[in-house]
């Protein structure tokens, strides 16, 4: 069932390098939205929480799983929504109001 450890470590290291490359090119203007967007991506933990919750079968396990699922869901949903709200403000604006004569 389990993936070879070396393979997972390789994935981990290569992903780190990809992360450094992709992100070091972002202009400062977008740092806050980017941080928020990255914050949303680690919301992938929600999937892990679901997988673990499916295996739970005692009260303690259910309680732990509930907290993990709820936290993960808040992270992923809230993270993407707040990032989108920020980026919505950077949308290309329509050109200035047309001259009065046109209306």
């Amino acid at each position, binding site marked *: 069932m389990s993936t070879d450890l070396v393979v997972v470590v390789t994935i*981990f290291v290569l992903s780190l390098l990809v*992360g450094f490359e992709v992100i070091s090119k972002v202009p400062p203007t977008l740092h*806050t939205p980017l941080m928020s967007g990255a914050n949303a991506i680690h919301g*992938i*933990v929600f999937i892990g*929480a679901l997988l673990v919750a499916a295996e739970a079968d005692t009260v303690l396990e259910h309680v732990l799983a509930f*907290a993990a699922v*709820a936290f993960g869901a808040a992270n992923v*949903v809230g*993270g993407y929504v707040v990032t989108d709200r920020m980026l919505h403000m950077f949308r290309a604006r329509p050109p200035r109001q047309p001259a009065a004569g046109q209306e």
Partner: protein
Amino acid sequence: MDTLDTLIRYVFLAAAACFVLGLHLMNAPATARRGNLLSAGAMAVAVVAAVVSIVAHGGVDPTAWAVMVLGTAVGAVAGAHAARTVRMTAMPQLVSLFNAVGGGAAALLAISHVVQADGEALGARVTVPGGLDIAIGAVAFTGSLVAAAKLQGVISGAPLVFRGSRALAVGTLLATLAGIVWLVAAPGQLPALALVVAAPLVFGLVAVLPIGGADMPVVISLLNAFTGLAVALAGFVIDEPVLVIAGALVGASGTILTKLMADAMNRSIVAIMLGGFGTGRGVPSTAGGPAARVRTVTPEDVSIQLAYAQKVIIVPGYGLAAARAQHEIATLASLLEERGVEVSYAIHPVAGRMPGHMNVLLAEADVPYSQLKDLEEINPEFPQADVALVVGANDVTNPAARRPGTPVSGMPILDVDRARSAVVIKRSMGHGYAGIDNELYTSPRTGMLFADAKQGLTELIAAVRALVR
């Protein structure tokens, strides 16, 4: 692995690729939103794939289903509600809260996995990343909560140091490491697990409390990287490569961002984590001395100065964000533009509460993106500016930074003192986070308009309007 499992793995891989592409699209303002939506879409598909996988494997008891559905509903509703209703000025603390729950989820995931395996001997393959995941996730959890509370003002932004706090930090850190070793040696031991949970929770508290409010952006960014790392480790624990990829991506991004933020403030990450900036330890005030005089001006004076200028550069700072005066500054700028004044905004990399925060706030007030200029772009323009209007910015305009030997030395600053004249809207002569006098304020070319940013700008707008009539 059957066909469905293989298919699900490919879906996860596609999602991971979309996260990378999404981050790449976030490089430019024009494509940033699409990038985030791509990332969100990929996440939604991955979640569906995970649910399909759970259903296909079967054997999930009804309580577990109820837990999943209820947990998702509670978390999603709370997260979406907070994200939709937060004021843009309070957004950094919300990001910190989301980071806290993310770190908490990563820790809980590993805790659940260890608890579920009770009795079974877990190998080091699981306990090593598991212990580290719990520890790092727990630090990110309490640390981010403290950071959010400091930004929100629930806890004082001042560095909080109590007797023995440093010893407690070192002690809990050592206890965490000892706990991880114990857990690896004896995976079934509940006390070992308890230690790995409790010690880093306390460490997160005592590590962030002594750090001043000005450094919180750097701390949040660092803790964001921590959570990414914890999620990647969680991926090792449950053997799910997509968590490893996404977590490592965020770990790398958070680290880069943290370094960029610290560089912009001329601070080392280590110095920040050890605390103490702005505690003013033996930092004498260097500006002007007692003889220095400050020239105060009225809104009417300033309105004439602004209205008859050719080029005005606005320097917004945290004071503007705190007073929520971004709409007022935008109104003033468009009034001046109607009179033919060339207006631009000088955005220091750390203006607001996080890098880029000021851009978000100004964008909210419909300031055209093309008017926002960063430090390198705007500094050569100051000598041609008739007026530099500083609203609630302090340390980032202090010329003392160009001299060695002051707490701000070496920090990149906006060359406001090189403009033909400067007007500073500020509530008082109070110090910025660096805790020193700002030599700009005592320059003969500077006029001080003592007011809250919102009130001062409102008066200025009225005065400019009166001129037009």
